[in-house]
């Protein structure tokens, strides 16, 4: 009998490709978001509003992850933003290897912001680094305020949570303050923004945060590319 010690991370293959993706984004000065949420939280609606607010200000691209359909990609395309659809054909998450070929379809020199809309799922996508700069979770109040505690990893790893459907607060039992306290307990550095994608309300602080991040990425590129 032979005993072999390995200790190689199971996700190593994914993490290596994620590192290559990240390096590519850095070279082009593109800020990349990995947008995650459960199905039906309003992830695509939030994305549409975000694109609407940034139209004419930033050059954007979108990668749409979906198990089978192109419904979300069609919605985004209608806004005049280049979009690449990845059908995961049954897989419940995007991984770094799926992102790499999708990048061939973008003109990376003419992008400031790339938003990857992950498959609707709070569990699996959290495990896979895509090479993004920031993870953003959308959490709607109709999902109930127990969700942060049930799915802590996704919130621990996010920089921002967009709390959506706040226009419905009077009609639900959701304790939004409790939800926010739980989120802060899981990740004290989280930025929380209350929004209503339906009414297009509350987006300004989020848009401001996003523009600042895109700017920082550009500045970093310029600083780095200057000869010493």
């Amino acid at each position, binding site marked *: 009998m032979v005993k*072999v010690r390995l200790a190689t991370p199971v996700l190593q293959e994914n993490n290596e490709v994620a590192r290559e993706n990240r390096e590519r984004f850095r070279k082009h000065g593109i800020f990349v978001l990995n947008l995650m949420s459960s199905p039906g939280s309003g992830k695509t609606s939030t994305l549409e509003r975000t694109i609407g607010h940034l139209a004419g200000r930033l050059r954007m691209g979108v990668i749409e992850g979906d198990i089978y359909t192109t419904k979300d990609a069609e919605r985004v395309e209608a806004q005049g933003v280049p979009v690449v659809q990845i059908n995961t054909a049954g897989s419940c998450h995007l991984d770094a290897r799926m992102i790499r070929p999708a990048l061939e379809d973008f003109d990376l020199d003419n992008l400031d912001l790339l938003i990857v809309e992950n498959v609707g799922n709070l569990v699996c996508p959290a495990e*896979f680094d895509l090479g993004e700069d920031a993870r953003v979770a959308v959490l709607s109040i109709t999902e109930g305020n127990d969700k942060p505690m049930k799915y802590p990893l996704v919130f621990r790893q996010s920089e921002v949570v967009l709390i959506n459907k706040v226009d419905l607060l009077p009609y639900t039992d959701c304790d939004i303050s409790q939800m926010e306290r739980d989120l802060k307990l899981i990740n004290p550095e989280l930025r929380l923004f209350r929004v209503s994608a339906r009414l297009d309300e509350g987006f300004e602080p989020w848009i401001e945060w996003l523009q600042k991040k895109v700017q920082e990425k550009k500045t970093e590129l310029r600083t780095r590319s200057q000869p010493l």
Partner: protein
Amino acid sequence: MHELSLMESVVRQLRASAAENDIKKITRVLLVVGKMTMAVPDALQFAFEVLQKEDELLKDAVLEIRDEPIRGECRDCHHVFDIENHEFLCPSCSGPNVKIVGGRELYIDFYEGD
């Protein structure tokens, strides 16, 4: 159900290593799974059973899973502690500046075979 894709990576690693070490049959695999990963041990076990079927190298292998607690280290007072119920505050100084130092493990510790 990303456990199946995780397990496919595990199997790929086992195959590559077994070939390198001239091992024809794997009998035991120890997988370490941190509690902060979202991989469910039962689902990993199930995925492994699916993948090992009719596979010469793996069909007699037993998968053991060891879970690791979520560990935090306070950046302010350097206290190291187990995190339970997802309370990420330092129990020593109550500070929120906590770095996760354990619980995200997901690797094959070792395997045995002939």
